[in-house]
């Protein structure tokens, strides 16, 4: 599903060059649930942006579902994002001016489905996350967990092959976080490939495989595993958000 080879990502400012990713290699198979962890500043977000085609790479090769994405034009990248990738963001990123129905509708519009298809998919997706009854509500009228469920519905509605989740529970309390994780596991079971970025080792264990990024490179998994688990016992759930 995802093949990254020797990817380099360099941010240049006037004064410094920052190597966010260096010689980065990663392969994710279809149907896998991979979690990505790493300390802050390690390059997690850069990996996520590159994997999600939100940023271009400086060097290297990236195949998404067999398509070489290097050098594609904005229009083609947009189409790939729209068709193949479903995004779940830490801060939900629902559009405040649109109600739930319209929010889920956004990627479908760009896909070019007709009205009937869109309506069916939106209703199905909202049904799946248990919010079909609140279709006409605005995001501000929902709790954080509900908002994230809408975001998941929006990601699913286009039936992407590949779901990219960025700290999906970062802004949620533990109960809601658990619900969201269960939902993701279900989705994975139905065959959708999931890559989830998190800094929470407990969540990292939800996936079939965990990858550590340190200093812009994939780290040897086994080296760090024990240490991580030990740490985990002292760590509280990383939860800053209040309930809505």
């Amino acid at each position, binding site marked *: 599903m995802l093949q990254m080879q020797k990817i380099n990502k360099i941010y240049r400012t006037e004064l410094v060059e920052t190597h966010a990713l260096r010689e980065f290699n990663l392969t994710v198979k279809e149907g896998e649930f991979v979690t990505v962890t790493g300390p802050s500043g390690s390059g997690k977000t850069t990996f996520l942006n590159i994997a*999600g085609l939100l940023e271009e790479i400086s060097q290297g090769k990236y195949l998404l579902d067999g398509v070489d994405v290097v050098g594609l034009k904005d*229009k083609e990248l947009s189409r790939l994002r729209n068709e193949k990738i479903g995004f779940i963001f830490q801060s939900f990123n629902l559009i405040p001016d649109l*109600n739930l129905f319209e929010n889920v509708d956004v990627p479908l519009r760009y896909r070019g489905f007709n009205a009937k298809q869109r309506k069916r998919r939106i209703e199905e997706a909202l049904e799946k996350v248990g919010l079909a009854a609140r279709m006409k509500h605005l995001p501000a009228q929902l709790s954080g967990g509900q908002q994230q469920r809408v975001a998941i519905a929006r990601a699913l509605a286009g039936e992407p092959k590949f779901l990219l989740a*960025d700290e999906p529970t970062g802004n949620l309390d533990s109960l809601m976080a658990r619900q969201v994780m269960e939902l993701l596991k279900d989705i994975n079971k139905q065959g959708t490939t999931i890559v989830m970025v998190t800094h929470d080792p407990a969540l990292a264990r939800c996936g079939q495989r965990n990858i550590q990024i340190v200093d812009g490179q994939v780290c040897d998994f086994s080296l760090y595993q024990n240490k991580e688990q030990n740490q985990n016992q002292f760590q509280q759930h990383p939860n800053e958000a209040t309930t809505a």
Partner: protein
Amino acid sequence: MFEFGPIFNAMLRHKSHALLLVVQIALTLAIVANAAFIIQNRLDLMNRISGLSESEVFKFDVFTFGEDNDISVQVELDEKFLRTIPGVIDAARLNQIPISGSSDNSSFSDKPNIDGSVRVSSGVYRGGTHTLNTMGVKLIEGRNFTEDEVLSGDSTQPVTVAIVSKAFVEDMFQLSPEDIQQGKLQQGLGENIYSFDVPIKIIGIVEKLQRSQVNVRGIEVSIILPKISTNKFGRYLVRTHADQRQKVMDEIEKVMLKLYPHRVITKPVTMDTLRADSYANDRMMSQLLTILIVILLLITSLGIVGMAVFNVNRRTRQIGTRRALGASKANIVRYFIIENWIVSTVGIFIGIGLSLLLNNFLMQQFSLPKLDYLYIVMTMSGVWLLGLIAVYLPAKKASHISPAIATRSV
């Protein structure tokens, strides 16, 4: 319509912003349509043709204060001399000059008795046989005056013949454009018209000759009487070859004073100058209205740009999200353009109503004509286009927002 529904719904949730822009666009349309219409009216007025060969003629005035001068003799000398100046085609002493402002008008009727007669108010030119050629007006029927027909200014004899303008004939004999096409114009030839009860025979018809006042009804209704004025204050019209006009104008004061010194020769002026002076108010009105339109459009585009910039800033995150969800740059630009288009269109349609209301008000309060709908249509298209141009840059800026913004935490 692509995305029309959600955009509209999203706008409804920020009603006051959209509404303010709608009001602004509607008012702009109403003001611009009416102002543009007034401007065009004034331009039309200013561009009316005088009938004279304007690029070849100039005028100057003579005021004689010497007591030892027989003006009727002097006029003849002056005219003769002027015609001998190299470059001069012809010259004539006249009582008034077209579009110069100062005027001599009189009423004429088609019957000697007042009851039941058609009365026509006309500009009255008085001059000799050289009048037509000096003006450069085109004689389309009949003939010019003969020397015997021309009376001196101090003569107590009444004039008996006249050359009139086509518009004079049309008004006096109430001819329609169809009548003119059927050649009925020449029926006016040889007819008598009456100044009070004095009969005057029409011997010639000129195609076009404007009066000296420009703000009168029937500006082309004029008559030329064969009489040379001999007042102390008199006007001369001189026709030259166009390329030699300036040279002749430059030396006119000197040569005229050489002929007889005890008089004042005013600065010679061209028809362009007379036109500019006579239409100064109309010119100023149209210039001021143009400035008003420019300022208004500037303000409204600033408003559109300002709102768009704010919208882009306010929606930075949502634009990034849209991009992440698969919107191309073109989709983002289109979003803002459609949004602006909706606002413009609503504004424009309200604006049509306002334009008509404003015009109605102007018609009632002032002597303004009814608005030509063409101006609404033209302004509509203009405002539409302006909206598109104004929103394009902010929209372009929005499309450059990186989709990666969506992964940034708040």
